[in-house]
């Protein structure tokens, strides 16, 4: 048994301990290092690979239903394109079978795992860079195809955009986004 | 003690031992459920001192109970997870849902097998879980109350393959 010798702990003298704890607290009191973000006055600019809300590129999509199949929470539904193009009685690409279908995401179910992104054989999904969005009613969670094609509108548009950077003093510092 | 020695030692107890290095499966199959306690004692003696998991697998003709044991104290065994496996005969299948009585017929009794908690106390909660999920009655277990599921789930044995539910059964809180 490769038993390494167990470590012996060192206890600190209580008086020294009290003094050092108080001193450390006082140090942080007089020179505070704030690490929090004044949300929503400041909001983060998300990195390009951030897994937030997303849309689908209508031109690239071939309607293969792979995303619907892999979606773990079954948030994606394929809807026939007939419903998509309102006003047109004869759908574009009619008679081409599967290609007439398009995915629509139920945001109430989506878990942002991006499996749909990765299974897509034509790389048709587009991330939008928005993540802090909530809806007021149940219907908004289930957009129609037109609504889904538009990238969601970012809340707090007038806020200061910041990006995080490692900071030796505070852990995460925030600096204005380039 | 290495895997081969362990294999010989356990085969001497009358168990069928297979070892698959690649899939990390060390399987000790005991055909006779009444002998598992003896085999388990032997395993404890050889240094497999705690249980990692207790579970059942529901096959069409039988339910297999598996104790996965491993070792903290014998260095050469620490890389092994030894599955002690025994089949128990299956009770009656679950009947179809009857909407009039809102039941699946009479409650099915749990299937008895010896509890190994006196060999491995670490199996206490794991056997409780296997009991409520598979309906395996561990004889000699000190405390077989349901643990994860609510009390009204008792007798349904949800991880058996014949477990189904009717939508009218779902309660909306």
């Amino acid at each position, binding site marked *: 048994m490769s038993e390494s010798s167990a470590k012996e702990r060192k206890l600190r003298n209580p008086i020294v301990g009290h003094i050092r*704890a108080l001193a450390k607290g006082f140090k942080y*009191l007089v020179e505070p290092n*704030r*690490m*929090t973000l004044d949300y929503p006055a400041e909001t983060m600019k998300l990195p390009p690979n951030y897994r937030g809300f997303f849309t689908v590129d209508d031109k690239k999509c071939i309607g293969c239903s792979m995303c619907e199949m892999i979606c773990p929470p079954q948030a994606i539904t394929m809807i026939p394109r007939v419903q998509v193009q309102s006003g047109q009685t004869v759908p574009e690409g009619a008679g081409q079978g599967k290609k007439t279908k398009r995915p629509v995401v139920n945001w109430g179910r989506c878990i942002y795992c991006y499996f749909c992104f990765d299974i897509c054989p034509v790389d048709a999904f587009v991330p939008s860079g928005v993540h802090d969005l909530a809806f007021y009613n149940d219907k908004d969670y289930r957009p129609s195809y037109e609504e889904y094609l538009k990238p969601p509108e970012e809340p707090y548009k007038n806020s200061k955009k910041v990006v995080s950077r490692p900071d030796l003093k505070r852990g995460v510092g925030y600096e204005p986004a380039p | 003690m290495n895997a081969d020695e362990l294999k010989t030692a356990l085969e001497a107890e009358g168990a069928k031992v297979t070892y698959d290095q690649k899939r990390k499966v060390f399987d000790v199959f005991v055909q006779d459920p009444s002998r598992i306690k003896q085999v388990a004692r032997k395993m404890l003696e050889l240094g497999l001192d705690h249980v990692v998991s207790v579970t059942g697998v529901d096959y069409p003709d039988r339910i297999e109970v598996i104790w996965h044991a491993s070792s903290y104290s014998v260095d050469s065994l620490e890389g092994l997870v030894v599955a002690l496996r025994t089949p128990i005969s299956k009770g009656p299948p679950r009947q179809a849902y009857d909407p009039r009585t809102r039941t699946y017929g009479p409650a099915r009794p749990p299937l008895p097998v010896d509890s190994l908690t006196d060999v491995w106390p670490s199996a206490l909660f794991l056997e409780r879980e296997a009991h409520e999920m598979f309906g395996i009655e561990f004889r000699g277990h000190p405390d077989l109350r349901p643990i994860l599921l609510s009390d009204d789930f008792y007798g349904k044995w949800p991880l058996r393959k014949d477990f189904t539910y009717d939508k009218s059964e779902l309660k909306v809180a």
Partner: protein
Amino acid sequence: MGIIPLIIWLIEDLLYVIIFPGLVTVMVLAIIIIYIERKIAGKVQMRFGPLWVSKRIGGALQSVADLLRFSFQSFIVPEGADRLAFILAPGLMFAFSMIPLIFVPVGPYYSLLFPAGLTVLLSVALILVTPIYAIVIGWSSDNKFSFVGSLREAFLLMSYEIPFIFSVLSMVIFYRTLNYIDAVASQYRFLPGIILNPVAAVVMLIVMIRTTGRFPFDITEADSELVMGLFTEYSALFFGVGMATPYVELYVYSLIFSLLFLGGWWPAPLYSPGPIMGLILPGLVVVVKAFIVMTILVFLRSVYPRYRLDQAVRSGWGYVMGLSALAVVISILEVIFL
């Protein structure tokens, strides 16, 4: 004494009690000190602290908002509770935490009711009444957590009050008076009490932390063990009053501390006529000193976790008791040799 001077005297006293250094000041100070406590914790914990209510002045109105919120919530009396005691106890506890203020003069002319009397003795006696209502609260709530909380309060009450009395006693021995004004005058002649008898000051500070439930002695309210301790079943304004009571107690204790140990209204002249030099200035000095003491004590929240009950009780009967006895000895020696 004629009837008219008596009435004037009484009105004056009432003003003292209600406005300064009494009720109004206490409430304002409690609101400020709660805000400061949160801000200090925010600073140490690398975050903002209260911010959203009145953002321009740094969230200073947060405590007022909390008070308003408590005022408009509904009050629920649990079914098994002792109704009368349950409703009365928080109010009485709050009132009794204020009453010692009558005997705590914050200036030479704030000598209420007993101009030359035993103010130290009376204030110390009255200040120890408050925890009894805490026990009543815990008992009347019909909740196991409140009950355990009140038992803890009782244990702590026993273990801290004797060191407190000893600590005050040592200063009384040294000043040879039971009157705050004479005690302050005595410090004018010598040095502030904290230099003369630092042991007594330390004991008093520890007792203050423990009585008012500051960390690391937040034992009766230990939220991870006892939900909210005594106030588990309370809601609305009664809960707010219960939460404010320790701050009132803290204020009273800090006043006593600054009178006994920090030289009272020291930079101001001891006896000086006139409303500014005689009333306002000394009063302000004492309250500011008390406020500084309070700030130091609420700062401890951001440094310490809490002790266990048995550790607190054991140190109360052990170390703190020994220290307080030592303080008495020091005072006696000083009286003999100085």
